[in-house]
């Protein structure tokens, strides 16, 4: 995976988490699945995205831009 893709994964992490957050509140408002029960999904989504970023970053980046922070 190229350094650019690593950066992409990092960049989409927060927006995707935000979309998930919105989605869970939509479920909360329109279905019986309350946010008080579904919130762990947030951790899972954010965790999985971070994990993808980590494993991708473990491959040494080709350029100088994508190294670990």
């Amino acid at each position: 995976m190229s350094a650019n893709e690593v950066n992409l994964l990092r960049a989409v992490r927060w927006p995707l988490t935000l979309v998930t957050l919105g989605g869970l509140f939509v479920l909360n408002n329109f279905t019986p699945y309350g946010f008080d029960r579904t919130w762990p999904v947030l951790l899972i989504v954010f965790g999985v995205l971070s994990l993808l970023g980590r494993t991708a970053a473990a491959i040494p980046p080709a350029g100088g831009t994508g190294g670990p922070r």
Partner: protein
Amino acid sequence: MKRRSLTGPILLVLIGVGFLIYNLRPDIAMFDLLAQYWPFLLILWGVLRLVEVLVEYFRGSLQRTSFSGGEVVLIVFICLFGWGAYAAHREGVHFHPLTWEAFGEHFDYTVDDQKPAGAATRVVFENNRGNLRITGADTTDIKVTGRKSIQAINHSEADRANDATRLEIVAQGDTITVRTNQDHNPTNGKIAEDLEITIPARLNVEAHGSYGDYDVSEMNGSVDLHGGHADVRLNKIGGDARVELERSDLVRAVDLKGSLDLQGKGSDIELENIAGQVTIDGSYSGSLEFKSLAKSLHFESPNTDLRVAAVPGQISMDLGELTANNLVGPVHLVTKSKDVKIEDFTESLELETERGDIELKPNHLPLAKIEARSRSGQISLELPEKAAFQLVASTDHGEAVNDFGPSIQKETDGRSASLKGSVGQGARIHMVTERGTVTVRKTGAQSDDSDKTETGVRRPAVPAA
């Protein structure tokens, strides 16, 4: 060069549009819409950011963008505010835009009119703003007295408004219409009329309005009320009553010989001594009291569904608790989060709560069939000493406590526990909770299960009130 995100300005525009609609079109319930649909704002924001990231990525100019501290704070605030707004919305709280009352002065006029009812069977009241007090009497005339308050800049303006909005009593066919004609007002000032009306008790009453309370008493006919924001008091009504309101602080009905059909949103309800069926459909956030209902009660709200064949005793309910005693079954209750306490019921009881403790005390023998479920909360059942029953009770996480000795078998498996067995030949009792203690005890007796220390188990038996 780091490009600034487009999301901020777009959200700003949306917020501006929202407030503009709120200001220009107060009839659109922006608060209600926002309370329900606000999560889509978060999704929109997330998607906008995603699109930005992808665009930058394909241009090859991707920056490692994360949310700034300010944005995170804003998201947290949106979530907190949105959750609160939704909770308020669901419980029936509504925000009305402030009305402009500071304009002009109030001028008072008296209203006085009378007309024979003749052979009419129905009387219709059309009073947009103001309170109506309608009393049935042994009379042949429709008599209206009261006070009309007109908001105007000066006296002549008020006179002009008063002349254009004279009260009319019009007979047509079997219907007599009492009209306050407030919609004919040529000025901008507000008009409200508080009227006292005496009519022949035999008539059927119908009333329409958008702001103002109704007080109807001593009528033999039916009563049909439609209102916006109104409190309703019904007293001694012979026929069926139907009440449809947008919002009320109090609906009280006492001594009704017919049925009652109530629809709306609001706060308190008090019903007492009603001979016909009672149907309530709406959301009410205050205290609800039902006493002496001779026929069936059906209460339906977004959080609660309650059906009872009759209520010789009483039911008290608020957002967090339902207490009832002396019910005629079959009783059916499904609720989201309420502590439920029911004492004395016949036929059968079917009860389901998502969050809340259940306390049941059937005193009459033979016992009614019981089916009680809680997702999270303890279930305790107190039975008379001579009760005969077949019991299946279980909890996934919790203790099981039994007072009825060896005829009930207790099993524990990991964190779950159950009670099974029969005492004599009797009704089937089924109690299930996912989290909490299940208890079966004899009336007046303390638990003899000495190794149980779980809180709540040792709660002393409450003496019957």
